[in-house]
């Protein structure tokens, strides 16, 4: 299983531009960690339901009515680049 772990490919999925050194380092360290977690395969989980949440909770909804949100200026205040009341990003569509 851990042989099939390709750090470069996974980093691409996670939108991380890892350096060559990081790729090498992580390939080793994460391979080692994955070998360690392999021991979970020893556990008999037949018929066991997965726990997604510690408490048995169900979805909570509120009434579909609009409420005030963040003020425009507050929402823009941390933007790395802003202009004309909008957040500026590199071109999305060619």
């Amino acid at each position: 299983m851990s042989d099939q772990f390709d750090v470069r490919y996974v980093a691409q999925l996670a939108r991380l531009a890892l350096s060559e050194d990081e790729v090498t380092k992580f390939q080793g360290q994460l391979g080692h960690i994955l070998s360690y977690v392999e021991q979970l395969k020893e556990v008999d989980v037949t018929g066991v339901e997965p726990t997604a949440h510690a408490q048995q909770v169900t979805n909570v909804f509120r009434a579909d009515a609009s409420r005030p949100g963040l003020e425009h200026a507050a929402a823009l205040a941390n933007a790395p680049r802003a202009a004309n009341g909008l957040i500026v990003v590199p071109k999305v569509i060619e």
Partner: protein
Amino acid sequence: MSKLAEKTATELKGLLHSGATSCVEIMQSVLAEIRARESDVHAFITVRDESEVLKDAAEVDARRQRGESVGALAGLPIALKDNICTLGLRTTAGSRMLEKYVPPYDATVVKRVRGADGIIIGKTNMDEFSMGSSTENSAYGPTRNPRDLSRVPGGTSGGSAAAVAANMAILALGSDTGGSIRQPASFCGVVGMKPTYGRVSRFGLIAYGSSLDQIGPIARSVEDAALLLSVISGHDANDSTSLNLPAITSEAPAQARKLRIGVPKEYFGEGLSGEVRGAIEASIAQMQREGHTLVDISLPHTKYAIPTYYLIACAEASANLARYDGVRYGHRVADPADLLDMYARSRETGLGEEVKRRIVLGTFTLSAGYSEAYYLRAQKVRTLIRRDFEQAFEQCDLIASPVAPTTAFKLGEKTSDPLAMYLGDIYSVTANLTGLPALSAPAGHAPDGLPVGIQFTARSADDAALFHSGHTLSQ
């Protein structure tokens, strides 16, 4: 006569009520400690301006003098871990990614602290995005243990624990995903507590593992921890995992409950250092002398707790940290070639090594073809771990255990091997996996003088039982 900054919140409230001291005097005492010790300890990322906090303190004094009501936190200085959003006050999560981030809102717990007249003194240091066990993963430099400056304070709430231990705050808030409140409390010799999952709102807590994270109190006494917990607890419509639980009282119990204390055999095997074992066993014996009953219990899936935790936590983290893309807030690289380049290089340069490692691991274990073998399987083992505890609580009311296998280790001692660092979480991750409340209280010292904490875990929603147990051990 000890300094004001050394006293507990409970003692200080008494002195304030009787007019023997003022909020301004208390704040001055704490500020003096910060001036004296912060350059060595480095508990804070941001300390608020002295004149501002003194002004806040004077305002509470004035209200008290006019006979107006003052909240339960009485104008006392409170430190907040820097992953809790504070309106208008920089919040970094210990990362370069959020170095300049100023939240446009208060976390729910912050609203509650302010509403109770707590005065925020500053934001404390932490492992980046709550990933670590020593506060060495902070992008702002490590915090040093006030008891021994060559050692770590623990993590990830190392700054909050160190601030309270060094008298640079009277109370603090931390967050706990795998032991991040309890382990630093143990290493620094203070009280730290993780509530039942859902008791405290996570709205405004910068997320790491959403099914595991909880905010909790760090304090000098169990009574103080109960006080702060009672202020921050409560259902919150802004957190859909928040529960409606009966309130915790901060009052000392009229009569301490006599409890059955479960001692899990799997927690006292290899890997537990002699000095920690000695202190824990002495505390448990003490509890027996006080009239509590000891019960031998077994938690058979203990050895699977760490791999289960790391698979779930890293998977959830990979999703929670996807938002740090350089678009709306946080660090963005200059001159990105295109959108994809902006994402990839902003994340590469803004996020630290441990964070990237966990994102890569989490992404892998959720990816097509692997999620069943890793993530789903971990969630099933999580169910079995939960069942272990449910069965144990048929025979006992509290489970006693170490918090960590060792006392505070030296700075740099564990940083080269990530897995070695992970293994130190063996006793603490189960409370997060199960959602159960757990507390670390000082249980004396190792022969070399380093603090040792004892952990108690209680049934879901029975957080009050933890405070009863701690009373027995309080100095």
